[in-house]
């Protein structure tokens, strides 16, 4: 079956522009996660959605970052007024409750 998909796979943007990243989770997965991975580093938690509950936004690094999820389907991560330090791979994962997480291929964001 289809796994987690993310788009675009690569995004180059100028400093100060807004970007929108998309994640399509595995069908039926109620939980969805966004992570950020800077070059050569580990994964940094950003935000977690579980069903209709209020999202856990505790990992968002600043108010320039926001995310939405439509029901139990697609999610978008928006970064406003991008900065060079936002350059990273943004990874999305989905799962059933307390089950294995499955990751998408990521979106590589480069801010010039």
């Amino acid at each position: 079956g289809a796994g987690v998909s993310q788009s675009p796979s690569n995004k180059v943007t100028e400093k100060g522009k807004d970007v929108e990243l998309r994640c399509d989770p595995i069908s039926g997965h109620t939980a969805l996660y966004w992570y950020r991975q800077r070059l050569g580093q580990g994964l940094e938690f950003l935000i977690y959605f579980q069903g209709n509950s209020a999202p856990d936004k505790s990992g968002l690094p600043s108010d320039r970052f926001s995310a939405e999820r439509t029901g139990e389907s697609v999610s978008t991560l928006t970064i406003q007024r991008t900065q060079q330090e936002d350059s990273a791979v943004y990874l999305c994962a989905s799962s059933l409750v307390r089950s294995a997480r499955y990751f998408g291929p990521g979106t590589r964001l480069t801010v010039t």
Partner: protein
Amino acid sequence: GIQVEQSPPDLILQEGANSTLRCNFSDSVNNLQWFHQNPWGQLINLFYIPSGTKQNGRLSATTVATERYSLLYISSSQTTDSGVYFCAVEGSASKIIFGSGTRLSIRP
């Protein structure tokens, strides 16, 4: 929050060698996963193992939840095993926290 420590941070082995990677965590967890991040950046599920032992081919994993650690064993290493191995745990807050990873390099 939960702290996750992985060791060693780097490991270089000859093809055919065996290795053990360790993950320590600071609090009780609801689940634990091991991932392999290949050189292209894709995170591959290896094991979902909140407790007990599992095996899949040359790989096996053991989690001792009461002692707050998990081990990943790789036997007869191959060059394709190279990459970064991450341990990720879920605490009561349901978000998963990753360790900093073990970078494994297998020399032919």
